[in-house]
């Protein structure tokens, strides 16, 4: 069970997309895992053939539990578990290697004591349809209760059970709050934050964006949010000390920029998945990636790496009539950039007042990894880029 974020402790496989004997390649999606925050596609990081599925659909297991074995492409004896890159994101040079040990034959799981989940009692196992397992996993229904009677458990049974529990509707929101509480409490406990704030005039950038959008089709239109993201990505490349992870009492800078984007969910809570390799995307491509990510957060699925690999995060509360964000860093990252609302303010240029559109850009920095001087250089770079959007 890969760790799909610093706040994840358990996960439930809700679908296996491969079975024993299937050939898998690096990057293939092999399973879908349900967490407190979302349903996430799990990738495999090796080439080979699936040996054994160790965790069945519907079973909640702790992070780190092997989910399946993979037989190496050449030697059938060469086996390794399907695993996450690591419990916490680590840079390629990290001292913590991805686990490669053989799977433990009896993974300790919360469901282990349930007779319906006990692998040793296969013959006594009640029949449970795949849809029932999936529904049970997503709706939090205990299959052992339903399976007590000697019958085939179907999705309808699970639905009925879920609807008879009054608390079910709020279960997912409760889980979301729990996940946020875990990550943010850790951030406040472990990270000595410093906060910087800088006001940047946007009148020129917005006019530039308006002209650009007037010449493109609606699908290619770029929102100010994407311009902000692009400015952060370019600034990160010039001031790399804010991009990476704090792991094992040391700052480990990242060579890539995986841009975390805090995205609010309609029914409460938020997720901050990453636009992977954002430094390889120009403004138009970054906008498309942001649209795609927002769409998948709200309706579809995220990939495991998107949940674990963010190297710096952007939060944009500008549309909520908030002028300034004082952010909390997502561990193990070391910085969070906040954009407030775009507001019209009196501004002094060359000794004269003028009305200007202005945005407050804030930085929450991890004082273990950097100091205010570096943070100020970073915000200064964002300011310079937003005043010269042609460079973006």
């Amino acid at each position, binding site marked *: 069970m890969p760790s799909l974020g610093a706040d994840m402790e358990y996960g439930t496989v809700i679908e296996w997309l491969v079975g024993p004997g299937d050939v898998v390649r690096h990057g293939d999606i092999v399973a879908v895992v349900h967490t407190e925050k979302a349903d996430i596609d799990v990738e495999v990081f090796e080439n080979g053939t699936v040996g054994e599925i160790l965790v069945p659909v519907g079973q909640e297991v702790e992070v780190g539990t092997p989910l399946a074995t993979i037989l190496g492409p050449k030697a059938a004896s060469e086996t390794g578990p399907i695993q996450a890159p690591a419990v916490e994101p680590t840079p390629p040079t990290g001292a913590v290697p991805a686990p490669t040990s053989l799977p433990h034959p009896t993974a300790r799981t919360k469901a282990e004591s349930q007779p319906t989940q006990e692998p040793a009692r296969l013959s006594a196992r009640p029949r449970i349809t795949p849809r029932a397992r999936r529904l049970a996993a997503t709706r939090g229904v205990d299959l052992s209760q339903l399976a007590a009677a000697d019958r085939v458990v179907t999705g309808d049974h699970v639905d009925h059970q879920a609807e008879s529990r009054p608390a079910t509707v709020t279960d997912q929101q409760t889980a979301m709050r729990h996940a946020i509480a875990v990550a943010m409490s850790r951030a406040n406990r472990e990270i000595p934050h410093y906060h910087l704030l800088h006001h940047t005039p946007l009148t020129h950038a917005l006019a530039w964006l308006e002209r650009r*959008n*007037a010449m493109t089709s*609606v699908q290619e239109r770029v929102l100010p*949010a994407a311009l902000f993201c692009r400015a952060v990505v370019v600034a990160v490349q010039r001031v790399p000390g804010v991009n990476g992870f704090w792991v094992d009492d040391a700052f480990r800078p990242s060579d890539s920029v995986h841009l975390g984007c805090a995205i609010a969910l309609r029914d409460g809570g938020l997720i901050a998945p990453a636009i992977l390799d954002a430094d390889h995307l120009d403004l138009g491509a970054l906008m498309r990636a942001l649209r795609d990510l927002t769409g998948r957060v709200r309706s579809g699925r995220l990939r495991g790496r998107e949940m674990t690999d963010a190297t710096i995060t952007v939060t944009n509360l500008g549309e909520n009539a908030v002028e300034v964000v004082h952010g909390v860093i997502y561990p193990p990252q070391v910085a969070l950039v906040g954009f407030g609302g775009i507001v019209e303010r009196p501004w002094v240029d060359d000794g004269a007042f003028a009305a200007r559109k202005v945005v407050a850009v804030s930085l929450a920095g991890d004082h273990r990894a950097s100091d205010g001087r570096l943070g100020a250089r970073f915000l200064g770079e964002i300011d310079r880029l937003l005043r010269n959007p042609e460079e973006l």
Partner: protein
Amino acid sequence: MNNDDLGALIRKVFSDLAPEIDIDSVDPNAPLQATLDLDSMDFLNAMIAIHDATGVDVPESDYGQVTTLETIERYVSARIASA
């Protein structure tokens, strides 16, 4: 596309963006972004969906004319008629 179809299409587009709200209970003259709690990404996605279904591309400079279910329908309908 007649006006009933167009109205239904527009309501479907916004209903998909704000599934927890009963779109038929929304006042056709109420400001949509505030009523449905839509951000600029949601609104852009609505404009893209309307473009995909009707071929009408609402430029940003006309966003001020498409703020309610009623005004969006009127705007798109006029653009289809003049095409």
